[in-house]
């Protein structure tokens, strides 16, 4: 058995009376895309939030590459190799796409307490950022301010930022949302391409993409992981059909 890159054990989180995460355990192995599906409000984003460090779990632990990171800050988890995208894009809007990616590159290269050398003339930094943007399909758009990019393009920038951290694992919260059919297909192909290098925990409501990409699917309902299995197993489950898929499977 291969060692999981990311492992979540017995996570609990309540908001007042609402239990948003109920004893969730799951893992992410090398070379796999593990999809997380479930109805709206099932607690998927909350779970990602806890893994990334924005939300403190009530109990349970999170391991990254075998190391317990439960009490680490967001930034330190990112540095240790946890890349993520947000359900609603979160980028520095006033600057170019390249600047956004450069920041991730710079963080992955070490301390940001470097005061003198100008990033503008740091060709290596700029080139690396450009490469990542090319990889997600944004060649030629690097120097446009993010605020002037369309909804879909922003998603791509966000993915590029996550990749630029050279992450060990990637958390993607609905990366397809807001992408048109062409965009979805491109992104699907791209994720396919990086799977061998970076395992992905993927939240997505676009079932075409999920069924095409996922090696494993975990279904979250009402905060609890009720089922985990291969694409076919999930498709076949009556429970999942009823709670989530509806007629679509």
């Amino acid at each position, binding site marked *: 058995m291969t060692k999981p890159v990311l492992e979540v054990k017995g996570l609990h989180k309540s908001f007042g009376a609402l239990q948003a995460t109920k004893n969730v355990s799951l893992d992410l192995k090398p070379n796999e895309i593990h999809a997380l599906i479930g109805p709206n409000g099932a607690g998927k984003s909350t779970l990602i939030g806890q893994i990334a460090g924005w939300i403190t779990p009530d109990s349970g632990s999170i391991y990254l590459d075998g190391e317990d990171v439960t009490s680490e800050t967001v930034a330190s988890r990112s*540095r240790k190799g946890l890349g993520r995208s947000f359900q609603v894009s979160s980028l*520095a809007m006033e600057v170019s796409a390249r600047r956004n990616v450069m920041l991730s590159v710079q963080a992955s290269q070490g301390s940001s307490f*470097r*005061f003198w050398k*100008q990033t503008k003339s740091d060709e290596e930094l700029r080139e690396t950022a450009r490469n990542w943007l090319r990889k997600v399909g944004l060649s030629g758009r690097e120097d446009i301010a993010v605020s002037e990019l369309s909804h879909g393009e922003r998603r791509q920038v966000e993915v590029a930022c996550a990749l630029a*951290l050279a992450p060990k694992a990637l958390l993607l919260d609905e990366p397809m949302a807001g992408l048109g059919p062409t965009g979805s297909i491109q992104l699907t192909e791209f994720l396919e391409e990086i799977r061998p290098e970076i395992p992905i925990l993927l939240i997505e409501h676009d079932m075409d993409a999920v069924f095409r990409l996922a090696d494993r699917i975990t279904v979250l309902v009402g905060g609890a992981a009720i089922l985990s299995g291969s694409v076919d197993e999930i498709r076949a489950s009556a429970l999942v059909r009823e709670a989530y898929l509806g007629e679509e499977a």
Partner: protein
Amino acid sequence: MQRTDTAPKPVSMPKLSRETIVNIAVMAILLALPLWASSIGEDYYVNLASLITIFAIAGVGLNFAIGQGGMVSFGHAAFFGIGGYTTGIAAFHSFEETLFVAMPFAISGTNQMLIIWIVAMVICGIAALAIGAISLRTEGVYFIMITLAFAQMIYYFAISWPTYGGEDGLSIYLRNQLPMVDAESALTFFLVCFILLLGAIFVSARLSGSRFGAALGTARMNETRLATSGIDPFPIKLTGFVISAMITGLAGALFAELNGFVGPSMLSWHRSGEIMVFVILGGVGRLYGPVIGAALFVLLETYIGEWTQHWQLLLGLALLGVVLFARGGVMGMIAGRARHD
């Protein structure tokens, strides 16, 4: 994906942007006028230029916090005042030939500006470290108010601390000294201030363009992004705050030299507001904005005051006009919106 009506920009961009031209012009005027005034023996105008220069340095400091780091400090008078009091207290002890601290080791006063500047900046840095460490836990309006609260604490402390004059303040009877030049001369002192202003702007520009600056700028625009990129916002912002305070503190030290006087009014919230006015008037985040802002403010205050007793009304109207009709301050009006590559 989108068409534009007109061709966006000529392909061969001229080397100098409008902003650069304005910057050069402003600095040239600021340098030339006192040289000329001094040559015809009008030291008053030289001192006025020194005042503008010093306020501009204070503004450059605050602008670094606001324009780069998005930390809207309404308490920068604290650092301005601390810088001033450092000068005042050092000169006081040097003049009285007493010790500042006797135990555990003796610290005496000094009349050497270079030493005073360094000490003033270090003390401001330490104060900013303490104030920032607490204040940066908050954000937005809360940050504005908590920085104000710290400044008010120091203000009331200064008012009621009798050793250094309380509300009456401290006079510096003799201007402190610089090696090799005659700091008593108005023109020399102006040139010293001018060089320090250039230095402050240069440092601020360098820092903004560095990796640290990139992180600080992202902290302003989107802290979530910064943390997600693996950089802890807090130490970045704290460092930015400390640097900003040190620059403003240096301005305070120079202000004390120029006036030959320090007092609690250097620490009052009006002063914080004024420094902020320099920044906004000139254009937030513009490197040379505070120079324009300080110049405009000082000139308005000085010359409207000569016309009429009701100068505050006119000053108010002028400021209001700038906010309402010149978005992005004067620099925004002249040179268009700020560009970040």
